[in-house]
């Protein structure tokens, strides 16, 4: 049924990952950059699912579960850092954040 969808799914994963990387390069708002990172994570999840389907094993599914968990933790901490950055620099432009210590 869905056996022949593995190759198209991998191509879709490639397209989404490259679009996410392009967004990380080009966007200037740090929240949009963060959303593009999430897009890249999802492209990788799609590749995991496609490979899980192609090999007939469930390890890919479990790895996607862990990627989801880590992405949730990463989003919580990352957005807290963005709030702190907005407080200290009063902007969300990525070029404004060039010092490591305040």
């Amino acid at each position, binding site marked *: 049924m869905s*056996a022949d969808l*593995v190759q198209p799914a991998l191509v879709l994963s490639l397209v989404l990952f490259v679009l996410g990387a392009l967004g990380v*390069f080009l966007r200037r708002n740090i929240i949009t950059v963060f959303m593009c990172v999430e897009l890249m994570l*999802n492209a990788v999840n799609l590749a995991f699912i496609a490979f899980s*389907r192609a090999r007939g094993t469930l390890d890919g599914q479990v790895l996607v579960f862990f990627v989801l968990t880590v992405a949730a933790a990463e989003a*919580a901490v990352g957005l*807290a850092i963005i*709030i702190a950055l907005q407080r200290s620099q009063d902007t969300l432009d990525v070029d404004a954040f060039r010092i490591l210590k305040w």
Partner: protein
Amino acid sequence: MITVILFYVFAALAVAAALVVVAQRNPIYSAFGLIVTLCSLSAIFGLLGSPFIAALQVVVYAGAIMVLFLFVLMLLGVKEEDRTSGRALKAVATALALTLAVEMGVVLVGAARPAPAAFDASTRTVAQVLFSAPYLYAFEATSILILAALVGSIVLARRDA
């Protein structure tokens, strides 16, 4: 046949919404584009025979994480980017993205193999793998990670930090 048609419909939707995420200068539009991408990917996970991950994708990603994103966007006030990346950066980014696409294309196209017809990734079977020997320890460690992220985000976002 209907599976293949649905796959291409949702794939086109996912790519179009991803383009919105990358091309929009207003972060709110980017966030809504990302939600559409995530829901389309959930449908594609379902079509690839992974109902458990499809449900998780909607609940955790499109639900929890994107609500968090929109919450922070509203909290900080939405501003369009007042300046865009320069022409040189755009050229470099496009070249790097094309290189990445070619590299990944070479790897991924060679990696596909004929998939077995029978595939069982129901919640029961995924849970049996997740809660057995190699992954169980990682699963338990995940709870500590979540706790650390919880404490860390409270400390970071505190006003007097």
